[in-house]
């Protein structure tokens, strides 16, 4: 049976970790959603150089480990005179990494909007950007929400990697507690439960939205 005194004795640290995990995930979600959408627009814009920038970005960051991005920001940037603490570096790393995936989801959503929509908007004199903003993206978002939810779940789980740069999130706290108490199994099972508190409701929420959107179509 789990030793729940581990939890009660280290309650403050777990809660601190939980808050940080939640905060970094939320910030990274918002950041990577905005940035990922911009990248998606880059990739399908009728301008070759933007397509290239978008493609190179996505293929590069999607195919390297998050840990490398986090390390580079945390250890590498101070040599450039930019000091980032673990939480800041970690959150930015998550944004950089997750944007690449989100941009793919958003791109698929944009491509699923009938091209007649773009043609109608463009032929009425709207610019490319206005067409995206007022006509295409609001329709694409419906299709993007379920994969976006899954990305958020991944993001919460991926944030555990930030423990290695002392980001102060759940996994980091668990490492500290384990080092202090010499307990391994119970400490990490309990931290897993904390992750589930975030990811399970999200997972159900995504399923629910998926069903509702499927019905409305």
């Amino acid at each position, binding site marked *: 049976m789990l030793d729940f005194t581990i939890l009660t004795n280290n309650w403050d640290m777990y809660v601190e970790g939980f808050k940080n995990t939640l905060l970094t995930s939320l910030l990274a979600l918002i950041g990577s959603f905005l940035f990922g959408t911009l990248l998606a627009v880059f990739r399908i814009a009728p301008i070759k150089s933007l397509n290239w920038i978008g493609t190179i970005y996505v293929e590069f960051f999607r195919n390297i480990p998050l840990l490398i991005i986090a390390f580079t920001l945390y250890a590498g940037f101070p040599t450039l005179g930019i000091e980032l603490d673990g939480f800041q570096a970690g959150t930015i790393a998550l944004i950089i990494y997750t944007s690449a995936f989100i941009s793919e989801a958003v791109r698929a959503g944009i491509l699923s909007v009938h091209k007649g929509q773009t043609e*109608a908007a463009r032929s009425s*004199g709207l*610019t490319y950007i206005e067409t995206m903003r007022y006509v295409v993206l609001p329709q694409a978002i419906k299709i993007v929400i379920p994969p976006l939810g899954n990305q958020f779940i991944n993001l919460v789980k991926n944030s555990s990697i930030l423990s290695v740069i002392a980001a102060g999130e759940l996994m980091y706290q668990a490492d500290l507690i384990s080092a202090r108490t010499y307990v391994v199994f119970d400490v990490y099972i309990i931290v897993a439960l904390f992750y589930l508190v975030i990811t399970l409701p999200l997972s159900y929420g995504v399923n629910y939205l998926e069903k509702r959107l499927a019905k409305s179509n």
Partner: protein
Amino acid sequence: MIEFKHANKYFGDFQVLKDINLTINKGEVVVIIGPSGSGKSTLLRCINRLETISEGSLTVNGIEVNNKNTDVNKLRREIGMVFQHFYLYPHKTVLDNITLAPIKALGKSKEEAQKIAHAYLKKVGIPDKANSFPSQISGGQQQRVAIARGLAMHPEVMLFDEPTSALDPEMIGEVLDVMKSLAKEGMTMVVVTHEMGFAREVADRIIFIDKGQILEDADPAEFYKAPKEERAKLFLSRILNH
């Protein structure tokens, strides 16, 4: 007002438009007919640069459509377009469908744009549908909203690409009626359609196009009575026996 001179258009190796010479004057109603795949839509879409011609010249109001210095967005404000499948914005109400471009492209205030939108909705006969979503109204009503959406920009010319082909037969009349009244008010119109009643009643000219070539440019009454071209005869007999 619209002038094609020796215009050619290719999709890769395939030549869709062949040496198009066509002048459409202000206030004219021109109907374009021809078999499926003959290049009618492409011809129409070149006018507002949804497609670009490959060779020759094309001017609208004296402006070179394909010139690099031409502000395509400004050009398009003067050219309304109505599509076969309406392409209303499904996430916006009828009113917002109509006001979007006047607000964003013409910089009109919301109030002003709405006033104009209501006026055109009345004109196309559905003043009570302003707050409906496209999915809540019939196909005929959707197409009339699409026409109102085009008119709200106060364009110089309206292009119609088979505006009634996707409609149930009982809804065709209501859309044609709106188009006829527009024509009678002096709107310059280029209409791809096989609706002969419409062509007979309001068209100034019929253009028959086949395999990317204009084969006839004729007065509607004469055209329907006795097309000069063999291919036009064949085509007419086909749509008449439909």
